[in-house]
């Protein structure tokens, strides 16, 4: 059972809390609050605090926690499922900034260096040899050759059939012309 004194203390405490919250709301709603926050953020103290936080163990701990609690997976899974990530990726790829970045990458000596190293590597040529010897490639080349031979043969066939008609027409025309030639009587 609470005594009358306890009841009074409890009521006073609740009242003080309400008054405190009301005072906080009033402070946040006031035009000075925004200005105060801006000043704090612009202050050297804020910069120093941020620098200290970044230099300290906070970031490492945060990184470990993010990895341990699979935060990135938990964020990305619904994004992937909803297709939102695809939309974002499309938007990023379609942006002029992405084009500029790709163009800069192509122009940069980094790509030339990468290609040069790739060409120098033994593994690449082993891979090329392996691919060139693969049944799929040899079959494709064979098909291509057969297709080309078929194409040539088809063209020869069509032209030879035309040539049959033309030769026949020419020879028959020659013979008919000679027959029709009027005889010149002296």
């Amino acid at each position, binding site marked *: 059972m609470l005594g009358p004194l306890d009841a009074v203390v409890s009521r006073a405490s609740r009242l003080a809390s309400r008054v405190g919250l009301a005072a906080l709301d009033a402070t946040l709603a006031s035009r000075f609050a925004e200005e105060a926050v801006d000043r704090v953020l612009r202050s050297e103290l804020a910069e120093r605090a941020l620098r200290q936080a970044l230099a300290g163990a906070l970031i490492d701990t945060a990184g470990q926690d993010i990895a341990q609690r699979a935060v990135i997976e938990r964020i990305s899974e619904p994004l992937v499922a909803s297709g939102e990530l695809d939309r974002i990726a499309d938007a990023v790829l379609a942006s002029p900034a992405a084009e500029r970045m790709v163009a800069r990458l192509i122009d940069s000596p980094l790509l030339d260096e990468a290609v040069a190293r790739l060409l120098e590597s033994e593994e690449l040529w082993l891979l090329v040899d392996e691919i060139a010897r693969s049944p799929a490639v040899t079959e494709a080349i064979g098909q291509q050759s057969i297709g080309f031979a078929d194409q040539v*043969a088809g063209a020869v066939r069509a032209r*030879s059939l035309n040539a*049959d008609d033309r*030769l*026949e027409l020419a*020879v028959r025309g020659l013979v008919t012309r000679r027959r029709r030639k009027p005889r010149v009587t002296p």
Partner: protein
Amino acid sequence: MTAIGAQEVARRVHGTAPAEATGPRYVGLVTRTIAFVVDAAIVNGVAAVTAAAVVLVLSLFPISHNLRTVLVAIGGAAFFVWVVAYFATFWATTGQTPGNRVMRIRVTRPAGGRLRPRRAMLRVVGVVLAALPLFAGFVPILFTDRRRGFADWLADTVVLSDQE
């Protein structure tokens, strides 16, 4: 203006009704020559490779002059048999030599049937006889309605286009 049929147009252009106006397409001299060139290349290619192999093997053995003459005669006979067998076999079986197949033409009876072996042999003889007088036996192909040469007349065959 009176409408004239395809037959009449063909008659005016060709002098006689061409093959396509009457149904099957008879094949002319140019196509047949190309097919024959392909066949000649195959026949001679195979013969040359075989001859080279035989000569290479025989070069390991001492062969007298008389024996060499006999071997040459055997080789000539073998070549003759090979040429006759090549054409006769293909004409009697599929109606198409490999050269004919490349050009999509076929040797058949006028009614469309396949040639019997004897008739195929007769056609080979006809081709040889047609070639002897400076290939004069092939000239009728240019003038006859069904584009038949001496060999076709002798064996009673026609050469049709196999294209659809």
